[in-house]
């Protein structure tokens, strides 16, 4: 059985002692000593406040931290967590910290948590991000409750964030996923989610765990799998968007995320090719009403670099982009940085042509994705320049318009997708 290789004897022993559970919260970690105490504390508070009668377990799957993260989880004192709670859990709160085996990466940690959830027949599972300190007991409860009480299979978080924040999400991944999968999911890259045992079993049956997708792009794959399968999905407002401490350089981050998105779309092509338009997902908990600040940059440095990058990459872009798109981009790059307006239709055509080039394999796939990065920065810079002083509602409308443009041009993508040699 797969469980034998994923779960160590020690973990199996612990889980057998725990028995069946109602709520399982999994926290994958790797050197998160700075934030893990707060996360564990929030989990215990959530168990005590919102699930006092449920059988609960917290599983920390650690990738080999050398900063004492597992010890911090094991030694998080009850007093530390419970003095702040109003009510106390009526059942024993189990807490297990265990290393996972195999290649370091969130995929293996998630696989271990899901395997444990399947073994303990957990009714509701929540996976948290150990890298943030802003997680609240209410946020954890809002990920669990729709599964436990409303029979949803997958709960995606919605963060309160300024619409100019996170351009990789708002300019590329969100509208692309929305147009393709036909669901208006706001945070497809969120590292936190809630899910049902049915969804867990489905995920464990897939063959991605030992692949590159399982190693670096598991969050996006989980979202795609939920949207493409016959699962009941919803969204829930959890907290302000967490400020992560990720130090991954931009190029590497961009490559990982876009490669994963393209790989997911290729994997789920049979599902999304038949979808038209998009539907909204139910929001089970409203967004927190905290205020958020706009990013400090106006994108001017990004647009200034765009023209130079485009000229440098001309020969790489030729086999990827159509002549029309390349000509439009070249004309755009001839303008002064402050006058560059990378319009929605051109940006969508660029993204779709890159996706088709990825599917056809016109060159090494990692090169295709890397070549998109400077164009993404150009588009981001153009958007930031245009809307840096605009009210939030206007920016939201611009993002909605971009998403609709992705949907409008989807038939072109499908037409060329069918023509592409496999």
């Amino acid at each position, binding site marked *: 059985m797969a469980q034998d290789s994923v779960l160590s004897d020690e973990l199996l022993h612990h889980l057998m002692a725990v028995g069946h559970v109602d709520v399982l919260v999994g926290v994958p970690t790797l050197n998160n000593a700075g934030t893990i105490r707060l996360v564990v504390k929030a989990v215990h508070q959530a168990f005590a406040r919102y699930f006092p009668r449920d059988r609960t377990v917290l599983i920390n799957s650690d990738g080999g931290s050398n900063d004492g993260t597992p010890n911090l989880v094991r030694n998080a004192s009850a007093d530390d967590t419970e003095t702040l709670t109003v009510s106390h859990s009526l059942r024993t709160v189990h807490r297990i910290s265990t290393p996972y085996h195999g290649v370091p990466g969130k995929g293996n940690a998630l696989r271990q948590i899901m395997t444990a959830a399947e073994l303990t027949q957990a009714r509701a599972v929540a996976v948290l991000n150990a890298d943030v300190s802003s997680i609240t007991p209410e946020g954890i409860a809002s990920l669990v409750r729709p599964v436990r009480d409303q029979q949803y299979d997958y709960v995606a978080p919605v963060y309160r964030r300024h619409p100019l924040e996170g*351009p990789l999400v708002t300019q590329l991944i969100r509208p692309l996923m929305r147009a393709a999968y036909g669901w208006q999911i706001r945070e497809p890259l969120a590292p936190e989610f809630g899910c049902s045992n049915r969804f867990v079993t489905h995920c464990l049956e897939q063959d991605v765990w030992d692949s590159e997708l399982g190693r670096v792009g598991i969050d996006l794959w989980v979202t795609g799998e939920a949207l493409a399968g016959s699962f009941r999905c919803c969204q829930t407002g959890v907290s302000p968007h967490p400020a992560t401490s990720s130090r991954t350089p931009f190029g590497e981050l961009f490559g990982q995320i876009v490669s994963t998105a393209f790989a997911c779309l290729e994997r789920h092509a049979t599902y999304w090719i038949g979808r038209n338009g998009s539907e909204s997902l139910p929001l089970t908990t409203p967004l927190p009403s905290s205020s958020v600040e706009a990013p400090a940059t106006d994108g001017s*440095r990004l647009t200034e670099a765009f023209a130079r990058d485009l000229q440098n*990459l001309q020969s790489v872009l030729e086999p990827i982009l159509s002549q029309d798109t390349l000509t439009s981009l070249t004309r755009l790059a001839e303008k002064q940085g402050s006058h560059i307006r990378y319009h929605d239709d051109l940006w969508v055509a660029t993204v779709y042509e890159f996706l088709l080039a990825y599917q056809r394999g016109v060159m090494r796939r990692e090169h295709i994705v890397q070549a998109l990065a400077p164009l993404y920065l150009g588009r981001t810079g153009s958007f930031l320049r245009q809307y840096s002083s605009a009210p939030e509602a206007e920016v939201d409308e611009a993002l909605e318009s971009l998403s609709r443009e992705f949907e409008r041009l989807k038939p072109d993508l499908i037409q060329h997708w069918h023509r592409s040699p496999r």
Partner: protein
Amino acid sequence: MAQMIANAIRQAGTNFVESLALFLPRVVTTLAIIIVGWLIAMLIRTLVRGLAGWLRINVAAERFGVAPLLRTADLPPADALLGAIVFWLVWLGFLLSGIDVLGFTSLQGLLASFWAFVPRLVLGLAIFVIGFVVANFAWRATLLAAVNARVPSPRLLSGAVRWLVLILTGAMALEQIAVARSVVLTAFAIAFGALSLAVAIAFGIGGGGIAKRILEHQFPEQQQSSADEISHL
């Protein structure tokens, strides 16, 4: 006297006819070998092109950057080029076999030399093709990495990498084919040494500022790139 002359002429004629009788079958055999060889070479070319099409050689050539070079050099697509190379190798083999049948002493051994040369030629071509693919890969990887890392003059850098690999593999291929081996070795050593020295001097004297900027880019704590000034997630 006249009788002697007549006998000599008759003898020469007889000898000529005998030689012709001996030589004509060889000519016919040679022609037959050449014609049959041509037909076989054509057949093999068709098979090779079909196999190349099935293996999607043209797609691979496009992917590895060989196809644009072929177009620039006004050469046929990769599958047709491969077929043509195989055709000429096979037909040249038959041609030399046919000539060998004629029995010209000066051409004796040509066929053996040719067949000894073919493996070296094929290996040399293979080295060059692999070198070209590697050079193209290295060029594109360097260019993309340099652009995304904001390294100055990315095209110059990636072009230098590409030519370095091409020169190296070109020299290796010529060494394998054994065409003017000493000339190739000497020329390569001089050119490579001169190039390295020129780059070192140019970079040392004139490129201090560029080196400084490159080093500064490697330390994000000291200088943040424009791409990193916003939170992308």
